[in-house]
């Protein structure tokens, strides 16, 4: 396993893909911070002069980076027949699976850290200090690491089980977009107001008062609300939204890393089981 790890890490650092990913995340962090600094310059005194909300917003789009990186990096191994070679020299399938999981987890965590590092570095010189308490940012930072681990574990499972590199690439991108859209949809469902009041209307030019608030039929209650809340906390798309956009610690914040690590564990177990049963080309 040690040999596998060192060989795969060497391939990671020698290839362009990892550095493109690092550059993309660093560039994204730089663009986001410079855009905020521009807003702060134009809209002076309107609350745009701090990096609040910027530090973890990259996490909401990070699924796409993870999908592209994992599918191309692991897919190249499929295409080159490297796995079969590794089996021939006596390595186990579980060891191969875990090697890719460890290497891609390290790579994606580094990309995430580069984004955060660039935002922190640039905002220190271009913007005022955070208004968000340090405790909130620190807790969210550790939660974001767990979310990245879960995103990566999910993508590795897909990439290890589908042997066609192009189909893996498309499947991973569609999964990433699906998780992002699913997270947003569930978030909107959870944020639906309990009561609705229509807009004020005018009759013969006279402004009439707003009608009495009516119960919103789309408001989630009971077991249904608990189920969607669980999905929102469990899936990486929802977690990324919570960490990236809320700006304050939710109740039971400990659920986020616990659920992320559970998802990572479940998908790794399932993926390793499926991978062990496969015939490799």
């Amino acid at each position, binding site marked *: 396993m040690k040999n596998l790890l060192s060989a795969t890490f060497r391939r990671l650092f020698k290839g362009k893909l990892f550095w493109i990913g690092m550059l993309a995340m660093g560039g994204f962090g730089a663009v986001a911070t410079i855009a905020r600094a521009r807003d702060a310059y*134009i809209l002076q005194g309107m609350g745009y002069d701090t990096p609040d909300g910027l530090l973890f917003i990259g996490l909401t789009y990070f699924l796409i980076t993870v999908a592209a990186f994992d*599918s191309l990096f692991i897919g190249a191994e499929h295409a080159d027949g490297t796995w079969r070679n590794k089996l021939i020299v006596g390595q186990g399938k579980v060891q191969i699976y875990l090697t890719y999981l460890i290497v891609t987890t390290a790579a994606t965590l580094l990309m995430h850290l580069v984004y955060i590092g660039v935002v922190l570095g640039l905002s220190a010189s271009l913007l005022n200090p955070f208004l968000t308490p340090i405790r909130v940012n620190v807790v969210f930072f550790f939660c974001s690491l767990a979310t990245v681990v879960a995103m990566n574990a999910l993508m590795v499972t897909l990439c290890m089980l589908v042997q066609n590199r*192009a189909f893996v690439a498309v499947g991973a991108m569609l999964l990433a977009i699906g998780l992002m859209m699913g997270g947003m949809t569930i978030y909107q469902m959870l944020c639906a107001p309990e009561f609705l009041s229509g807009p004020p209307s005018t009759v013969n030019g006279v402004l009439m008062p707003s009608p009495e608030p009516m119960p919103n039929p789309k408001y989630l209650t009971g077991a249904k609300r608990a189920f969607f809340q669980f999905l929102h906390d469990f899936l990486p798309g929802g977690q990324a939204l919570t960490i990236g956009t809320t700006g304050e610690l939710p109740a039971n914040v400990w659920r986020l890393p616990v659920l992320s690590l559970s998802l990572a564990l479940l998908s790794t177990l399932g993926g390793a089981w499926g991978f062990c049963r496969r015939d490799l080309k």
Partner: protein
Amino acid sequence: MSNLLRAGFVRYLKNPLAVIAAVASLVIGLLGGRNAVYTIDDVYLIALFIAFAAFISLLVGREHGEGGFRNKAIAGYTKGQIFFSEWLLHTVFCLCLLLLFLVGFAPLAHEVLSPVPARMLALIALCFVCMTVAVVTLLCVLSMLVSSRAVSAILSVLLVIGLLFASYKIEEALSTPQYYYISHYDEQNELVWEEQKESPLYVDGAARTFLTHLNYTIPLGQSEPLIQCIGVWNYDVSWIDEHSCSHLKIVKFFPLYSLGLTVTIGGIGYAIFRRRDLR
């Protein structure tokens, strides 16, 4: 060239991907029609274009991978014929997929579409057709120029997402109001006076003209005005603002923007493809 088209048509029809893309288009159309309130949600249009991206990149990538382009060149076809036949095949396939989307969408969104006058509806449909041709051209050129199937699949999906973000950002910049108001209250919390200030984010002059044309040129930038053109016939008349009405006047020029993009991107793509060695 007719041989190329016939062979490509049969090959694509036999491919299970074509069936998957057709089913996906129909399902997206059904979902879009079911959830249509006042107008179409453009998320379904984006989902359709992502399906196009996956479909085109995988099929063109297969030609690259199996040496299909090289074989055609050996059989005596010019690069121009190969390029044009591939573009034409994908355009026709994707227009069929758009038709399937509309077959799923239209019956369920009948309430939203029925208040729109027939001429306007026909014009909007023509705009969507031209927009689809422009998107297919972009995706086809990208897939023809990137020989790695996996890389072209990822870049195609990223291109659709990039177009979406670009159009959102431009629309956001253009819809920023010229003035904003600061309300001043006295100690009894009663409004004393309102101060009108010019928004520093308002885009004016040449930049506004450039961004407006750019927004109409980007295929997904056209989708928002087109959707608003359906929406204005469903909203209360008092809700219709000047911004929405302006789209009604400009919408007839959208096919020209799409045609311009198609010709430009197709021409650039062909020029690059002609210089490439076919593997």
